[in-house]
């Protein structure tokens, strides 16, 4: 029987739940046991969803101490002989998973967005590939375990399979802590969560000089403003509003891409968008090939005219 471990990072439990869908796709109808690893958490979110919760309670084990966490995960992997280890591609998941893979001498595939099987029923993982409008199909060579990081919000777990969850309390795991200490931590005051927004007005390098014009249009359409990397590099948005590989995966019903070229690092985060409208002076920009409507022209002009049109319509409606 297959065995898999999902790391339920305390701050990303909701994203970790989605990883259970990855397991369903990986194993199909084959029997498997799912273990959730929680560290200094309560494991409540895993109840009824996994077979076992490995409940590690030790206040000396800090979420940022990646060397100590690597000790713990590696020990558990050796004990339970997992086939797959899954991590959310979060701030800490992105650094813990590759460390664990190196420690275990395991194959590692990062930022997967889909799973499929070849003719021999061997799993293949879909992940962004360098440079252009492409995704790579990646295969792990024979052997286990395979370590995976999964982009948040790319899989949807429907929770239809109710499981009887057993708790395994672990308090005597050995690890070596040290070399890093948290001095302070304060929550970001920026609560611009674009990941669950219905409509995003997103700007790129082509509208950088008029980026402030996006906010009124977003407001008029009851959406939020997001952006691609060139806007972040100009310090016009916080990272929380960045769409793409180094930012967020989004799933709005409508994504309006204004002056966005559409490099793979950006469009990989748009796979679950329902409608894309792009406005670009170059109709051959990669984003245009993904768009339902392409507006050929200057993005700032479009924003100005569209906003006027909406305002006019609103004023007629109130007359």
């Amino acid at each position, binding site marked *: 029987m297959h065995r898999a471990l999902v790391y339920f990072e305390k701050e990303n439990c909701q994203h970790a739940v989605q990883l259970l869908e990855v397991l369903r796709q990986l194993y199909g109808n084959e029997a498997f046991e799912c273990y959730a690893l929680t560290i200094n958490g309560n494991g409540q979110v895993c109840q009824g969803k996994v077979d076992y919760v490995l409940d590690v309670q030790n206040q000396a084990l800090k979420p940022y101490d990646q060397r100590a966490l690597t000790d713990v995960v590696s020990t558990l992997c050796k004990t339970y002989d997992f086939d797959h280890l899954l991590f959310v591609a979060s*701030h800490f998941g992105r650094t813990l998973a590759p460390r664990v893979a190196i420690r275990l001498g395991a194959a590692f595939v990062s930022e997967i967005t889909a799973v499929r099987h070849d003719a021999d029923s061997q799993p293949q993982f879909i992940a962004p590939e*360098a440079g252009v409008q492409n995704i790579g199909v990646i295969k792990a060579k024979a052997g286990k375990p395979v370590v995976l990081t999964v982009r948040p919000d790319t899989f949807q777990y429907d929770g239809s399979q109710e499981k009887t969850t057993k708790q395994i309390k672990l308090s005597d795991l050995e690890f070596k802590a040290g070399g890093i200490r948290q001095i302070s931590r304060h929550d970001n005051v920026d609560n611009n969560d674009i990941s669950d927004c219905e409509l995003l007005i997103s700007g790129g390098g082509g509208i950088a000089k008029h980026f402030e014009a996006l906010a009124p249009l977003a407001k008029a359409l009851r959406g939020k403003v997001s952006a691609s990397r060139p806007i972040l590099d100009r310090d016009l948005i916080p990272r929380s509003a960045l769409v793409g590989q180094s930012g967020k995966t989004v799933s709005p019903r409508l994504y309006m891409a204004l002056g966005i070229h559409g*490099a793979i690092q950006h469009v990989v985060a748009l796979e679950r968008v329902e409608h894309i409208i792009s406005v670009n002076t170059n109709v051959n920009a990669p984003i245009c090939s993904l*768009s339902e*409507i*392409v507006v050929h022209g200057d993005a700032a002009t479009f924003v100005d*005219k569209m906003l006027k049109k909406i305002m006019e319509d609103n004023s007629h409606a109130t007359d």
Partner: protein
Amino acid sequence: MRLVCVIGFTPDKQSFGDNHEKQKLIWQGCRMKLNPDDGYALGFALHLKKQNPDLFIEVVTMAPLSVTPLVENILRVGVDRGTLVSDGIFAGSDTATTSRILGKYLKSIDYDYLLAGSFGDDSKINQLPPQVSELLNINYISGISSIDEDTFSSSKILVEVEEEKAMATYELSAPAFLGLTEKCGHKLPYVRLKDSRMDVGHRLQVIDNSVLGFEEREVGPKGSLTKTISVQALRKKTAQQRIVGTDSEGIEYVYNFLKEKRFI
């Protein structure tokens, strides 16, 4: 004090070829560029060197020899040594194997801190710093938005990190690997015109497998545990695409679409 910037080069998308029929990426002859966040790490190191000329900066990368002119330009802006880890048998290595190759070289040199960009143009680049850190048994922290420069000369430094939901300050003991973001605020300077022909050959070393001594089965495709078997277009052109202009007809079309889909 010695800083080592571990940098990566990615294909420049303007010159990068792909063959969708054969489902292969065409790397041969494609122009490479420095991973943008690695440029910020280098920019920060050079900023520190301005204040402390005794600081020694080495840049280390694993890449084909074709990136030599790019590394030479990095030396021309003030980096003390460039190390290009390159050998035909390394070609085709996955990121874990690349980390092992670089890790072997890094184990052989002295450093106080390793620096790199936090994010890569290519997600595979992001894996490298944590994997190298594991091999060197040192801490790695990514997302660093600022570093307390006063602490740089001591054995422990303070860094501010932008996490998903919080800003946090950490104290790290040297040696450590630091992943910087654009927020650190120091871009890699351009080469000055007067320095553009500066001979920097004596500061550039190429490390090949005769130095590192890997067996053929340990590196390249044979030594890699993952394999990219094909590349495919992310999403096909949508069947019902409509191209309009920014004239009144185009605006009307988009407006009606928004209304039809109940966004207005």
